[in-house]
């Protein structure tokens, strides 16, 4: 008896879903052959093996694409994305957009740097924007292509500013940092910069930095690891916790926040992206991918697009809710440090004992 009802229900469900499918709007576009009216640009985005909604640089990149498209007034059918599941697919995925007739292709992540340049050299008519991709040849010599813009950031500067903030704001003189994959240079730059920043303003502070020991499928996505690690920082007396490394770092920020510590975010202004920490987040070490990508897309549209490396600004996000708790002295000191960093007076990436060698920092100027 029960079984029959179950099957009837099941069949009904299946039938409805077919109907729903049939009633849904008809396929809008056939493919490359049809030029859609209203698309003055078609923008494609290929993510790194992380996911689009990683609340980190993949998400920022895609948000940047959307922002750029909106600025140009493009219909949502004019831009699309492919998430990469396997690093062996980078080239196929980029080429898919080429074949579908896209004009601007955004790829994110240093790992796709060489592949993006390869496809770009084969398709000089298509413009490419590579995030975290230095335009260098195999011997690390600058080698710009006309149709590839590399959007890069000095994460070490961002990390240094975060570290300085932490070092100035800590009362217990213990600060912690939870980081994603130690073999990813951007993460290493944040970590080394952070360490140097704390030491610069507060040489007596003890700094506890922890990377996730796992492989790429874990080290950015293990939020429980971040959380547990933050908990142990609190047990050690830390009162400021910095997190850089996707979901792993997010876990650390939320837990540290719940435990009453102040936290510092990364990449985006995490006051906005991680509402759980809005009452204890001091600031974020911003890497403004969104504006950077958006600007480059607009440039692609109005013909001002230039190949080669560009560097986005590295800065701190507003203090938001904690603004009143940050003394004016600290604020001026941070501005001073930011200036020194921008002139190269401070080297945020200076190696220290046992520091991560995987930074590949580019000096300012």
């Amino acid at each position, binding site marked *: 008896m029960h079984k029959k009802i179950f*099957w009837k229900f*099941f*069949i009904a*469900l*299946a039938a409805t*879903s*077919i109907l*729903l*499918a*049939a009633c*849904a*709007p*008809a*396929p*809008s*576009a056939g*493919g490359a052959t049809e030029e859609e009216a209203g698309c003055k640009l078609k923008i*494609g985005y290929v993510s*790194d*093996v992380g996911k*689009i909604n990683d609340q980190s640089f993949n998400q920022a990149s895609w948000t940047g694409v959307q922002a750029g498209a909106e600025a140009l007034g493009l219909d949502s059918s004019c831009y*699309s*994305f*492919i*998430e*990469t*599941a*396997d*690093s*062996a697919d980078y*080239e*196929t*995925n980029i*080429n*898919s*957009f080429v*074949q*579908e007739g896209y004009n601007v292709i955004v790829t994110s992540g*240093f*790992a796709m*740097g*060489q*592949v993006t340049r390869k496809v770009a050299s084969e398709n000089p008519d298509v413009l490419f924007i590579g995030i975290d991709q*230095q335009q260098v040849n195999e*011997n*690390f010599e600058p080698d710009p292509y006309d149709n590839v813009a590399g959007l890069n950031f000095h994460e070490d500067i961002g990390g240094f500013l975060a570290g300085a903030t932490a070092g100035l704001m800590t009362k217990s003189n213990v600060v912690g940092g939870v980081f994603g994959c*130690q*073999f*990813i*240079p951007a993460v*290493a730059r944040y970590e080394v910069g952070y360490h140097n920043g704390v030491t610069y303003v507060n040489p007596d502070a003890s700094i506890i930095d922890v990377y996730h*020991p*796992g*492989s*790429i*499928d874990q080290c950015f996505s293990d939020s429980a690891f971040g959380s547990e690690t933050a908990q142990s920082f609190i047990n050690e007396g830390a009162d400021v916790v910095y997190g850089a490394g996707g979901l792993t770092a997010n876990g650390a920020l939320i837990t540290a926040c719940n435990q009453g510590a102040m936290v510092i975010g990364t990449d985006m202004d995490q006051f906005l992206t991680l509402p759980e920490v809005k009452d204890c987040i001091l600031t974020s070490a911003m890497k403004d991918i969104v504006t950077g990508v958006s600007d480059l897309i607009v440039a692609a549209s109005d013909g001002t697009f230039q190949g080669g490396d560009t560097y986005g600004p590295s800065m701190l996000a507003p203090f938001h809710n904690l603004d009143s708790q940050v003394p004016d002295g600290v604020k001026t000191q941070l501005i001073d440090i930011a200036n020194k960093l921008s002139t190269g007076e401070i080297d945020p990436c200076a190696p220290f004992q046992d520091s*991560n*060698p*995987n930074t*590949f920092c580019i000096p300012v100027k």
Partner: protein
Amino acid sequence: MRLEVFRITESEIAPRTATGKAVSHLSNLGVPVFAIFTALVVASLAIFLSGSNPIEAYLALAAGAFGDLDSLITTMIKTIPLLIAGLGVALAFRGGLFNIGVEGQLFVGSIAAVIVGTGFHAPIYIHIPVTLLAGIFSGALWAAIAGFLKAKYGANEVITTIMTNYIAIRIITWSIGAYGPLRKAASVVPETNSIFESARLPELIPGARLHAGILIALLAALLIFLLLFRTTLGIEIRTVGMNLHAARYAGINVNRTIVLTMALSGGLAGLAGAVQVMGLSPYNFTTGFNVGYGFDSIAVAVLGSIHPLGILLSSLLFGAMDAGARLMQLRARVPIEIITILQGLILMFVAANQIIRSLYHIRAPKGQGEVNLTQSWGGSTD
């Protein structure tokens, strides 16, 4: 006296099995086809809920997999590792072992191929086979650990292979990481050096990406078929898999067979890893490489009813889904996770074939031995 015989007579049995053969072949093929269809229907609900058009999505999926020559090539490239690794999982299943460690063995095979492929220069006809063998042997050796622990201590291979997976992946992550010995000098990316030209698999059609790995995979399928069903070792593996006690009784060295089965299974996984680094540009191992093939290959093996021919078809299906996912995202804006859901549903409907049979009124074939894949969970091999 009442003396009728109520047991079935031979004349009753005979026609059933004669036609039964044809019927069972038909329904053997029918179940997976209907299972795939049902999975597509169920998954279309999820696609619809996310605001996309399921039909558009599936059309894009098909176009991305078979739409043009380039898509076809992508499908074939995706099929290669799934086919080889799927054969590995199936071989273990045939021997009564569940090798969840394919992921790690595949990594080990890739790394070994990289070490040999970048270790020395040699003529192509030496370098390629040696590099392939390095992948096979390293994967085999890594898997044989679990086989040995099973044979010697009765340690359950599901748990040990999960653990050896973690161990392999962590060590390899270290080896290409910031401090690792295999890290390509002066590279921003955590990657190894590219293997030398002499150890790269040649492209079948120059410039078309499709490399000789497809031939290796097909050859592997043929060899595994012959091994399982035409050799004495195959009989031994299947006997151990079906009935450990009878195998022991028949004088088969059960412990040796377990270790050997595991090693062969791992060898195939290692081969899959080696073929990947030897066949795909930029011919090196990097972070994010080959993630997930180990687990997909389990689904491929079960979907292919652990038979080389079936696996040929199921790996093609999964390869096509992986390949088609690009256009499905690009054209229909459907997140790639739908592929995982789809694969899970297909596996479920194929394994629970009664659901499909009762939905579509397919009769079950009689007298077929069900393969119990987990015969010695937790216990020793006694």
